[in-house]
């Protein structure tokens, strides 16, 4: 049923069957092969092949509804929480299939953290927001270690100086930009390998956005980062590699400066030059 719908779709959209550019990288952290996602009958992602490199930022761009967020949510199996969503194909994290029966989704998400579009601090204190992940995964043996993790995470998220005197206030009392950095601190606290960011700055003002972008650049030293963004300037500023999605297809992927200066696919060029999107 969905197969026939898919073939009709691909006839209509006339996208090159194969992704243009270098989908492979040496020693990838994530390796995705022929990934399909269906929401009920809707074919949201079509045969996507891409590798994700370590210590690098991968930006995913494309018009609304093109499937970039959907693809991002495949990487930590957040699509499991959506009723009627189905993921096919192979996704490996450090060579292990994340859909394998042995793979515990809880452990997967501890290794692959996620930051969302709207800051979503828990209804707890600032301290407890950061301590939540380490607590549920038992990362701290005692209160002292937990304090250290919270301290380190807030420092790395560039929030420590602003909140060190008010750790016991609710996380919701912070400003939007601070809340988003709190969410990043919360993610770092579990010490993941990869951080997924789904339009992390779309609800923030330009100053808060600049702080987050600086932060992303620093975090790249230790983590692989995938960021979905609608801002092409942001993609150009923070990423080393860029992937362009269109109507569920991965059209082109390559080094960011190449994609933005010399795109190979017509669709990518049209999008980057602002002809649509």
């Amino acid at each position: 049923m969905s197969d026939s719908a898919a073939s009709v779709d691909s006839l209509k959209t006339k996208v090159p069957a194969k992704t243009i550019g270098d989908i492979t990288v040496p020693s990838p952290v994530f390796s995705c092969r022929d990934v399909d996602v269906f929401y009920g009958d809707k074919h949201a992602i079509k045969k996507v092949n891409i590798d994700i490199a370590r210590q690098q930022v991968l930006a995913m761009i494309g018009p609304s509804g093109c499937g970039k967020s959907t693809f991002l949510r495949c990487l930590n199996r957040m699509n499991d929480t959506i009723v009627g969503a189905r993921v096919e194909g192979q996704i490996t994290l450090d060579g292990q299939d994340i859909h394998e029966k042995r793979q515990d989704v809880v452990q997967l998400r501890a290794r692959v953290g996620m930051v969302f579009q709207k800051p979503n601090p828990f209804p707890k204190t600032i301290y407890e927001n950061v301590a939540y992940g380490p607590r549920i995964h038992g990362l701290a043996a005692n209160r002292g270690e937990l304090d250290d993790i919270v301290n380190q995470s807030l420092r790395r998220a560039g929030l420590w100086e602003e909140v060190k005197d008010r750790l016991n206030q609710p996380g919701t009392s912070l400003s939007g930009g601070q809340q988003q950095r709190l969410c990043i601190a919360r993610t770092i606290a579990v010490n993941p390998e990869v951080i997924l960011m789904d339009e992390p700055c779309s609800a923030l003002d330009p100053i808060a956005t600049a702080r987050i972008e600086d932060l992303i650049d620093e975090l790249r030293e230790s983590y692989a980062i995938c960021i979905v963004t609608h801002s092409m300037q942001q993609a150009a500023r923070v990423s080393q590699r860029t992937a362009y999605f269109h109507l569920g297809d991965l059209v082109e992927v390559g080094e960011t400066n190449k994609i933005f200066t010399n795109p190979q696919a017509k669709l990518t060029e049209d999008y980057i030059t602002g002809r649509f999107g």
Partner: protein
Amino acid sequence: MTPSLLIVALALLSFIAFQIGKARALSVAGGARGIRDLHSLPGHYGMLAALWAGLPALLLVILWVSLQDRVLIAIVTSHLPASVMALGQDGFTLFLNDVRNVIAGNIPASQVSAEAAVAATQYVRLQGYSRMALTALAFAVAVLGLFITRSRITPELRARNSVERVFEGLLFLCSLVAVLTTLGIVLSVAFEATRFFNIVPASDFLFGTRWSPQMAIRADQVGSSGAFGAIPLFAGTLLISFIAMIVAVPIGLFSAIYLAEYAPSQVRKVVKPLLEVLAGVPTVVYGFFAVTTVGPILRVWGESVGLDVAGESALAAGLVMGIMIIPFVSSLADDMITAVPQSLRDGAYALGATRSETIKQVVLRAALPGIVGGVLLAISRAIGETMIVVMAAGLAANLTANPLEAVTTVTVQIVTLLVGDQEFDSPKTLAAFALGLMLFIVTLVLNVIALYVVRKYREQYE
């Protein structure tokens, strides 16, 4: 014309006035093209004419009808022969009752005294005149209103503003009705309660531990002098409400968690309405259930383990009341849990939290104020609940914490005090109002706290 027929006629006249006003506005404007020169739409001018034709006349009718009977009786009384006036207070009241019964046609004129028959005839005759006068006057006022308004219609007349002001006033009056009713209830209960506290000291009522409201009515009667210590009643109410909450809060909350977080949508579609059916069962039916099923079962179980359970026990009443409140708790908690944004759940899942960790530490935490508010509302319902406890809790005012004994509640005592013949100057009857006042204050405080908590919670996520 009878007043009801008159009101229909006035409504008709208002409708005609609407058409006249609208037509006048159009002709003043010089046809449909000129509408833009008018301050308001033609319909507004029509409505203004209709209001001026209808409202003053309607107010007149209402005022007239509410005063008519008093005036007519006064006139009839002033013409009565001296023999009737000599009857004294009680006799005169009986005489007036006869007159009214004849007027209403309940008894034929031949069965009452000649004076009463004459008075009744006179009343009916005067009533006829009064109605004619009212009809003429009301129509005069209506037509006058219509023509004055019609002559005032010019392009500058701000008809829309006036019409909207009148409707705003009507809306205000409607909302005032609910507020005034509440105020009226409070005042009437408070007034009767003050009379009670004049006879029985408030400290005896509030802190007394013996409740035995039987009073000797006559001096020569053998009977108790009455004791009005309300503590056993409030203790019984609290005991039963406590048992009810022990049943309702966990079951309601857990079923809400299941429905909101775990249940597949098909199960939710079936179970949620079924649970809400429980809320639609009349409380008197729950009462049957408590008396005929739960009470005897508890008794048998108690005997089998060597416990002496009263036929009417606090436990039976509390259990059934708890079942009654389950849908109340679960539906409120379900709303609160569903209102927790999905982004919070996503945030927890993305950190690697399991479903149960997410629910316990994030979702319930976020929904807690709302759930607490819902539980407080449920408690105030349990305290005010009457029918189940009347049927299943018993009448004996025991001061006990043992749920296996019969206890009585505030609401049960109010019912027993006010059922059957009563005199409204005895403390026995007046005690009901004092109890009612206390109950009202307690539930009011609970409701205010609950609404405050719920509102605070809502602000957080909107």
